[in-house]
């Protein structure tokens, strides 16, 4: 049903494209999102999914092609888009591009570049891809074109909205930045992100402007905390730049990189400032709530609930005879597709606007004694009982309510009498029993029940204990879910300790989750702790770091430890290592990249080798029996050789000779030799990463190193006909996987598949090895956590595939 014909005569010159990257890449927020079964872009804002507001704006702006890039929840987004009016009614061509493995904005854009969709200038909406605005964005294209006309090296125009007050409610910590630009041409000279943080940390609210800037005779203008719209107009070159520079993770990196390499690459970045109009890029919960209230207060006019509801309704009646065949699910929807359909039904009711910004959708029952103060949105089918007080609140469909202010409540929520709720987000199917008090900024995820007379602290996030891991073919989502459960259930000693040492928001304590204590005797749910950096997910620490720098509300988290900030050098990474406690032997290499304010922290846990440069990352302590120092030393040497081999690309034969030479130098047995080689092969990508501080996905890098250098080496030592070495190698791989469940373990099938394709492993040895494992596996699986289980299931599926493939042959 997708109208492919584009109205080409509409604006003949050029097809206006917009790319929406629908992920905030904020790990905390994603954690919360994964418990609501809806991606942020489909979160309801005043009865409509958030993304509808953006698409409406884009269509208003005359954008002809919208490319949605989703990293998670692709299934939900796709089914929503297919059922929505947009694909049916508008000639605007909407494409959904899944980038499952993308872990940063850079990954998404690199993926787009590979697909080669984009040939023109395009609008890029990052952040969460959801921008609320009542302005038309089409003029930006012309603006960018003008910039390019003046300066043909201009690749990007960043868009901001001026705000004169730092205390403005639409500023959150994660958007604060300082711009230095040319007053006349708006050319960007410097870009300092995380200004607040910078100031707090360095105690010196100053930044330095390079002297060269003044030598250009330009009239400089500094902007402190403009509102970052997370919107930019990019030339297609931007994508290639992202592809060329693997270390560009965010727009921030990109701008810094472009400005740094200006002398070499001559690319320039411009910016544009809106002086009027409403803009809000919703990428954290604070802004989500602000957006809801602002829309109710009509700041976004003409994007107001009654207009959008009308829009939806009319198109529904025209376009879909199918919609009438779907029956409304009566009780709480369990599976995702039904849940989505109910959500689509939201829009079917017209919204009536009333005095004091009160919106009533469809049929609601309102008690005479209820008191709707101001700024309230009430969804269809909601029952408001007597003595209910509502202020600045959005209530979804089919709710029963009590006393609420400043909150957002989704569908099918029941709140009994005498509850006090302030500044909370309450998702679908929540039941709050009588007499509860919810603290500010609490989030109750899907299916939670809060017992009688429970008082919750501020900033509490409650999730239902039974997360239905919907394996709707969304790898990343599963990962997130398992990660989260792993955090709760498989809480190893070290994690608990780290948690204690680093609990920041005051909620994280090491005790077991006592549901009843938290949510009452008749409650259901447990607290979700957000501030844990998972220890075994250390392949891309800096990335992880950026993802976890801010909490779901967009406020800066207190650091675990205050990284020493020697604020002088700008470009060279100065690694300062601070040990956070001998028990953990944890190292935080914080690179105080001061000018960018981009503090990267590498948490490297190593049990044996605690050498300060953290060059070898070996988790061998748990796995291997007792490898003496010699083997360790030998491993280090092998790793170095491999790294050199990878970086300098000498002939593989030479490398093998070198490794053979190494063998007699250290006292290692043949078995240990093979184990070490295997280990090093899989540690190599991390090593390369540590060295260059570029952090693309570990897995991608692994494949890269494998294809480039290490496969021939493996083949050389682990011969297909040699049973012993094959089994040893597989065993070692498994040990590695079990140690690094997050990065390696869950990808075991992909790794094995790759190596099998490369003829490193022979089928019979894999099968034999697997058979030998089988018995003990089955014994183990009962008391293992989800990631372990996933490892086993992945392994199993691969082996099954291997078997069936064989039969077909």
């Amino acid at each position, binding site marked *: 049903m997708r109208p492919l014909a584009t109205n080409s005569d509409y604006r003949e010159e050029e097809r206006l494209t917009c790319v929406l990257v629908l992920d905030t890449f904020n790990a905390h927020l994603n954690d919360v999102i994964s418990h609501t079964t809806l991606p942020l872009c489909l979160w309801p804002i005043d009865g409509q999914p958030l993304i509808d507001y953006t698409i409406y704006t884009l269509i*208003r702006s005359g954008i002809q092609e919208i490319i949605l890039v989703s990293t998670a929840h692709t299934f939900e987004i796709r089914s929503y888009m297919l059922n929505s009016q947009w694909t049916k009614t508008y000639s605007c061509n909407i494409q959904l591009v899944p980038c499952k493995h993308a872990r940063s904005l850079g990954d998404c854009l690199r993926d787009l570049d590979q697909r080669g969709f984009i040939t023109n200038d395009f609008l890029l909406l990052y952040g969460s891809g959801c921008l609320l605005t009542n302005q038309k964005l089409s003029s930006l294209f012309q603006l960018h074109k003008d910039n390019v006309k003046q300066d043909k090296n201009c690749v990007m125009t960043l868009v901001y*909205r001026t*705000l004169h007050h730092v205390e403005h409610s*639409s500023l959150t910590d994660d958007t604060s930045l300082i711009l230095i630009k040319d007053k006349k041409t708006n050319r960007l000279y410097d870009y300092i992100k995380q200004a607040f943080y910078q100031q707090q940390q360095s105690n010196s609210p100053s930044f330095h402007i390079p002297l060269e800037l003044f030598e250009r005779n330009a009239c400089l203008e500094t902007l402190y905390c403009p509102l970052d719209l997370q919107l930019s107009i990019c030339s297609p070159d931007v994508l290639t730049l992202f592809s060329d520079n693997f270390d560009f993770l965010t727009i921030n990196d990109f701008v810094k990189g472009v400005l740094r390499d200006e002398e070499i690459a001559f690319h320039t970045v411009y910016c544009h400032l809106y002086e*009027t109009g409403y*803009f809000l890029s919703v990428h954290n919960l604070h802004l989500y709530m602000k957006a809801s209230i602002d829309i109710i207060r009509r*700041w976004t006019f003409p994007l107001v609930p009654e207009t959008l509801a*009308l*829009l939806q309704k009319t198109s529904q009646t025209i376009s879909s005879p199918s919609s009438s065949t779907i029956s409304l699910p009566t009780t709480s929807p369990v599976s995702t597709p039904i849940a989505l359909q109910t959500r689509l039904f939201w829009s079917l009711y017209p919204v009536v606007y009333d005095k004091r910004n009160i919106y009533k959708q469809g049929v609601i029952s309102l008690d005479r004694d209820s008191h709707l103060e101001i700024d309230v949105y009430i969804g269809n089918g909601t029952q408001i009982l007597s003595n209910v007080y509502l202020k600045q609140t959005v209530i979804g469909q089919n709710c029963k309510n009590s006393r609420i202010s400043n909150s957002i409540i989704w569908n099918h929520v029941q709140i009994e009498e005498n509850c006090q709720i302030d500044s909370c987000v309450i998702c679908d199917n929540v039941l709050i029993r009588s007499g509860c008090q919810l603290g500010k900024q609490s989030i109750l995820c899907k299916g939670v029940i809060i017992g009688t007379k429970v008082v919750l602290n501020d900033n509490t996030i409650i999730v239902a204990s039974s997360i239905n891991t919907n394996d709707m073919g969304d790898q990343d989502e599963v990962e997130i879910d398992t990660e989260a459960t792993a955090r709760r259930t498989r809480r190893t000693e070290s994690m608990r300790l780290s948690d204690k040492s680093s609990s920041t928001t005051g909620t994280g304590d090491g005790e077991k989750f006592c549901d009843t204590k938290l949510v009452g005797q008749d409650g259901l749910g447990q607290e979700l702790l957000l501030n844990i950096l998972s220890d075994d997910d250390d392949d891309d620490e800096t990335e992880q770091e950026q993802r976890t720098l801010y909490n779901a509300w967009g406020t800066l988290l207190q650091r675990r430890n205050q990284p020493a900030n020697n604020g002088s050098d700008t470009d060279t990474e100065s690694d300062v290592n601070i040990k956070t406690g001998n028990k953990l032997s944890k190292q935080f290499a914080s690179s105080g990249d001061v000018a960018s304010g981009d503090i990267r922290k590498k948490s490297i846990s190593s049990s044996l080798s605690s050498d300060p440069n953290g060059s070898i990352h070996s988790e061998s302590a748990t796995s291997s029996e007792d490898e003496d120092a010699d083997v360790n030393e030998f491993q280090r040497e092998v790793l170095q050789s491999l790294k050199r081999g990878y970086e300098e690309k000498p002939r593989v034969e030479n490398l093998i000779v070198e490794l053979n030479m190494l063998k007699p130098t250290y006292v290692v047995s043949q078995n240990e030799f093979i184990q070490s080689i295997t280990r090093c092969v899989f540690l190599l990508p991390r090593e390369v990463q540590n060295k260059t501080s570029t952090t693309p996905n570990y897995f991608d890098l692994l494949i890269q190193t494998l294809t480039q250098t290490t496969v021939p080496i493996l083949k050389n030592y682990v011969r297909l006909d040699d049973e012993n070495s094959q089994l040893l190698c597989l065993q070692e791989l498994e040990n590695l996987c079990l140690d690094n469940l997050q990065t390696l373990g869950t990808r075991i099938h992909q790794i094995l598949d790759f190596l099998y394709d490369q003829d490193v492993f022979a089928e019979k040895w894999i099968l034999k090895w697997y058979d030998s494992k089988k018995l003990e596996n089955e014994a183990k699986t009962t008391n293992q956590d989800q990631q372990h289980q996933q490892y086993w299931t992945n392994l199993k599926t691969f082996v099954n595939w291997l078997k069936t493939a064989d039969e077909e042959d």
Partner: protein
Amino acid sequence: MTRIPSEVELEISKFCNNIRQHTYVRSVDIALATVLILKKLIGESTWTDSGELIQLIRSQANRLNEGQSIDSITFNIIRRILKLIREESSRILHGRHEGDMPLTLQGFSETVSRTEEKENDQTLNQKSADGTETDVENVAVQKPALTSDNVPMINLKPELMFSLNEYNFEIGESGKMISRESIQHIHANELILTLGHSHTVEEFFKYAASKKRKFQVFVMEQAPYFSGHIMAKNLADLNINVTVVTDSAVFALMARINKIIIGTRSLLANGGLTAKCGTYNLALAAKHYSVPLLVCAAAYKFSPTYLPSFDPVMCNSFDSPELILPYNDRMQSSLDVIVPMYDYVPPELVTLIISSGQGNAPSYVYRLVSELYHADDNDLERQNRTIS
């Protein structure tokens, strides 16, 4: 079921887009664009007879009106065209001589403009007499025509296209038609008050000025949109003596004013107006000083609907507070700002409505509306709502 070809679908969505983007500055542009869309819809989609065509247009009506209120120009135009279809089909069915009446009626305003020299009331009497006759006839005649819904496309289409073209021309000329009246209403050395910017009113003044009539205009600036500034500038360019006054000065000023001439967004069936905010204020002051309030409204602004409610909130729409409180203000999230866009002015405050060719009292609007539109089409907006 009739099919709409994809090109027409495209045109429709383009039209909706334009409405949404506020590409049409003047109301007449919206009117013309709507006629064009309907022409395409009638001309290019497949339908077999008049009944089917009416169904087709009605099914698209709400989509075309997307995001606009129920008294919008788009709805009015659709209603008018539906009426044209009914008239044409009944004319074809029952022969030329019976169809003469609707035809005269349809060219109603045109005839009037041609017979401009005639006495006003005389024309009125004649028209109203005609109107009653044909209405009775229409009801009687159209029932069989519609139930047997059989006027085939071949016969209907050319006739319909002809009358659509005529209607299109009529809309295009409506501004001019109204402005020709100005000589009768604006007398020498009068003080005239207007509110904000209206293309119709601007043209009205322009015509009078072109006839060397000397008069002075006071323009209320219409906060917070301040469209009055544009109006004042445009009039000053025509060498008309203009003064801009604040909205709040309207009462103080009213005693000096001879006449008020304003435009309106729409004209409701009871003769009331939904006009720019501040108009009610103005009208009350005018009533107090017994200053005549003249409203320029083209025929396509006549809506057969009434106010959905007497609650001033229900019939209004509210703009972004940014017009009053800048977004970058630190109080942005804590202050309540209300920006109504329209005022409802009850008919008893309106003296005269100047539409193409003649002036009418507000109490007469219901008559005109019943002549312009068919009674069956008055519930256009409700049709889809009940389905959903």
